[in-house]
């Protein structure tokens, strides 16, 4: 069941100039959340952040009853989120959206993230690993500084990286990484800028590997009521907030 909760910020950790890691908690147990799902956060009722802001579930720390969010500053809403202090509360609707398909035990999967798009892949990787899946992360960014949460990702699989300026990992885009030549996978999960996801999807399609992408369309309600967030699919317009955010590339006109 979807809930509206006032969660307390237990930590706001700055990861780099543009990104923070927020940890949210409450007295009682947090609702069950699945990899791929997102939350809708109310910033406040200020004039330039009228609607809620959708943010992916980055990780759920069951033991500490914490929901992690990875937030990149792009405009007034994310800017205010980045400034919030521990102890303050955030009004959050969760859990929203569908989830990634979970590859079966023993499968070999690649999780490809770009920029802050790596967010949903941490929780996904953690769950997959628990399920006995062999997980490899391929994370891309513009520079070493913008590669996020590497220590966390490496807990749940092998991590490869690319940077556009070559300051870490292989130089170039994720789709140019040598892993694509060296290894083959049963399933690819990807989230990041649209051009990156399209390139990954093309690569997956060429190699006949099943592939799911997580979309970030502009949303008003987040619960399937307004029909603002639609994406073109082979079966017509689908809501990214309820039919997604995760889609199989076969269903998209990608």
């Amino acid at each position, binding site marked *: 069941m979807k809930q509206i909760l006032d969660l307390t910020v237990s930590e706001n950790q700055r990861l780099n100039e543009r990104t923070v890691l927020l940890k949210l908690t409450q007295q009682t147990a947090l609702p069950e959340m699945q990899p791929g799902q997102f939350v809708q956060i109310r910033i406040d009722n200020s004039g330039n952040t*009228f609607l809620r802001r959708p943010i992916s579930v980055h990780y759920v720390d069951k033991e500490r009853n914490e929901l992690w969010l990875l937030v990149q500053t792009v405009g007034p809403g994310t800017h205010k989120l980045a400034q919030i202090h521990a102890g303050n509360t955030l009004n959050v609707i969760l859990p929203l959206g569908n989830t990634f398909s979970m590859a079966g035990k023993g499968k070999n999967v690649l999780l490809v993230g770009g920029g802050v798009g790596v967010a949903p892949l941490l929780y996904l990787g953690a769950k997959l690993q628990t399920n006995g899946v062999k997980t490899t992360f391929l994370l891309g960014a513009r520079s070493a500084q913008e590669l996020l949460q590497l220590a966390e990702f490496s807990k749940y699989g092998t991590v490869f990286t690319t940077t556009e300026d070559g300051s870490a990992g292989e130089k170039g885009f994720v789709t140019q990484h040598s892993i694509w030549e060296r290894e083959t996978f049963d399933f690819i999960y990807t989230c990041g800028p649209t051009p990156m996801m399209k390139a990954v999807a093309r690569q997956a399609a060429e190699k006949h590997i099943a592939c799911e992408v997580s979309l970030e369309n502009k949303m008003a*309600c987040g619960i399937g009521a307004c029909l603002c967030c639609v994406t073109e699919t082979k079966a017509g317009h689908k809501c990214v907030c309820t039919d997604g955010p995760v889609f199989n590339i076969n269903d998209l006109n990608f």
Partner: protein
Amino acid sequence: MKTEVNIGKLTLKNPVLTASGTFGYGTEYTDFMNLSDIGGIIVKGTTLHPREGNPYPRMAETPSGMLNAVGLQNKGVDYFIEHIYPNIRHFDTQVLVNVSGSTIEDYVATAEKLNELEEIPGIELNISCPNVKQGGMAFGTSCVGAESVVSAVRKAYHKTLIVKLSPNVTDITEIARAAEAAGADSVSLINTLLGMAINAETRKPLLSTITGGLSGACVKPIALRMVWQVSKAVHIPIIGLGGIMNATDAIEFLLAGATAVQIGTANFIDPAISAKVAAGINEYMRRHNIDDINELIGGLQA
């Protein structure tokens, strides 16, 4: 304390409705609130034939508001009757259907089909949607247009007929009078204001359709003024909406002359807001020793 209000033959347990296109079919909100706490819901704009709506992007945020260009995406009235109606007909609140079209014949055909549904006590005729090329708003921006579509539907539809007016007009009272004269039981106002947003960096419009409908807190002053003007112009009950974000806003609309209100965009920000507005009106009535909500309606001291 009496909170019941009447709209045509319809009785609402309290004056709070949800606005079409902002509340889906109600089912999207049952996790957050009891639908039985509000007077009624008006479901998504329904057309004779299925519509895919406009391409993405369909939404842009604006200061204290938003633009939408959904363009009446819906599966058509037959799908509604077969697949949606059965799931919502037993809601413990009034369920009304918002009807849209591009020709008078379409409106009439849709209304005729809905007339057969036992548990749908009324329809809201959307003659004011700015997001579709043909019809839609065109009917709502001239008296002749409004008169012709309303009287045609009136002949075909025998339950409560609400006509939803466009704010994109010079004089909304004229259109309201035309709707009344053509047999409307009530007018609801306002639909969205036609607006536009641009990304200065990319030089591109933010909506696929360039222009779209403005709603949310920013439009409240305009909506309130129009309700006030129309309340002086017609004798049928008015349903007021546009930018209602909380109970105080709703009370302002009642004072300006609305018999009931609709909550639209606010549902996106707080999916339980419509029940909170209903509760807030009760609280206000208690605090001000008002026994009957009808004492509030049109109670502006001006």
